[in-house]
């Protein structure tokens, strides 16, 4: 499932790369779609060249490829989510374990990017997704439904960035002019979560 997650995310980002770049053009520097598309191609290469033997290896290898090959802010930020998940994920993988690892991944990206919810960044999609996963674990719902709830929460979180004023990243230079645009990082984070829902067992 973990390899499939990255393959599906790559497909979605490739499909939507022009939309992501357009969102970035509005409040950033018009390269988010291109960069992430290139990054996930590198992830695909890494996962094919050295086939991972465990979910932990998939996460670590994908995270490392994103950090080492993408550049910009999104490479290290996404890379740190997956590397941190890889560090703490316990095997055998359960929904509760996945949820806990994902939460740690989100904490890692908040720390690295010094961003909090409401700053108009990828955290605004990732944090609600993490909360949805934790609630799903608490309520004892199935894996597929849990991932779908996380994907919905991420999509809603991304949409909720539209009226926000950016406080981190390049969009923050625009001040109030960043209001009225969806954050491209939150939009791509929502794609990662949508991919997760699609490949759920």
């Amino acid at each position, binding site marked *: 499932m973990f390899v499939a997650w990255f393959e599906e995310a790559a497909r979605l980002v490739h499909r939507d790369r022009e939309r992501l770049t357009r969102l970035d053009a509005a409040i950033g520097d*018009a390269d988010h779609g291109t960069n992430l598309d290139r990054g996930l191609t590198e992830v695909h290469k890494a996962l094919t060249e050295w086939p991972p033997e465990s979910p932990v290896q998939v996460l670590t290898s994908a995270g490392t490829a994103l950090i080492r090959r993408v*550049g*910009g802010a999104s490479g*290290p930020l996404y890379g740190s989510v997956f590397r941190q998940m890889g560090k703490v994920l316990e095997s055998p993988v359960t929904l509760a374990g996945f949820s806990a690892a994902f939460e740690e991944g989100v904490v890692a990206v908040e720390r690295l*990017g010094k961003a909090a919810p409401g700053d108009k960044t990828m955290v605004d999609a990732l944090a609600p997704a993490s909360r949805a996963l934790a609630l799903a674990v608490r309520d004892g719902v199935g894996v597929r439904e849990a991932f779908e709830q996380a994907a919905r929460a991420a999509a809603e979180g991304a949409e909720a960035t539209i009226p926000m004023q950016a*406080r981190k990243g*390049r969009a*923050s*230079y*625009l001040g109030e002019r960043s209001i009225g645009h969806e954050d491209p990082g939150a939009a791509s984070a929502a794609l990662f979560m949508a991919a997760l829902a699609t490949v759920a067992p």
Partner: protein
Amino acid sequence: MKKLLNTADSMVEDALKGMAAAHPTLRIRDRVVYRADGPRQGKVGLVSGGGSGHEPLHAGFVGYGMLDAACPGEIFTSPVPDQIIEATRAVDGGAGVLHIVKNYTGDVLNFEMAAELAEDVEVASALVDDDVAVQDSLYTAGRRGTGATLFVEKIAGALAEEGVPLADVADVARAVDERSRSFGIALTSCTTPHAGKPTFALPETDVELGIGIHGEPGRARVPMAPARELAATAMDAVHGDLPLQGDLLVMVNGMGGTPLMELYVVFAEVAAYVKGKGARVSRSLVGNYVTSLDMQGFSVTVCRLDDTLTRLWDAPVDTPGLRW
């Protein structure tokens, strides 16, 4: 979009091939541009880097009296840690390495990671954040690094040639940044080769105030005005943040698509403005140095000089982009 390129994906690589072919003083390997004659034992190494599309910054400033290596990323995208680690190790002549980093989230993250991972080399870091268009507050990523990057690279590079320790080179780099301020105005957006169309739409009648160097929109849009008024707008912003006084190093920098003639028109107004405030243009630079692809417009950068900084600015430099 009409651009001189083979494919958008190969543009950075193709341009680097051209640099290598044009400048035998450079050695280009694995996406890092080095001085062909380095490293020199006992000299602090200077490494900078950032997204491509700002040429001649940074690779054009590799050479005697300036950088030892530059790490070009994709267009407007910071380099990756691997490039920076490789460059850091390669230029270390035993006296440590200074990273000169423009204050953008991506650049800062990737240089920080590289500094951590290149643990066998003593690394210091100097952040450039001179753009007064961005308020330095909790509500932004902090001020951007723009025109002052050239000043920092030139002056720190000159001091490094004198064989002083890493801490001194880092101190002078930070001092130049603290004494420098910039403001930019765009007449047009720029077109990144991957997007194929201008990053933002700017009508013939308007200009964009407080732009950065990545085609990102500025703080405000106002009607087009004579050069005198645009220069005054930029200088008011600079003077309001760091009052103009004493001997100044003043650069009027083109954003890539601006004719030199227009830059001189702006420089005349900037010089008159400086004089009007009772300060003096002691050293100057006019041209396209810190660019944003094909954007039309200018930025002005002012640095308060002292005797040491003036001496280091005047020291010989021999790079593709700056030479005297």
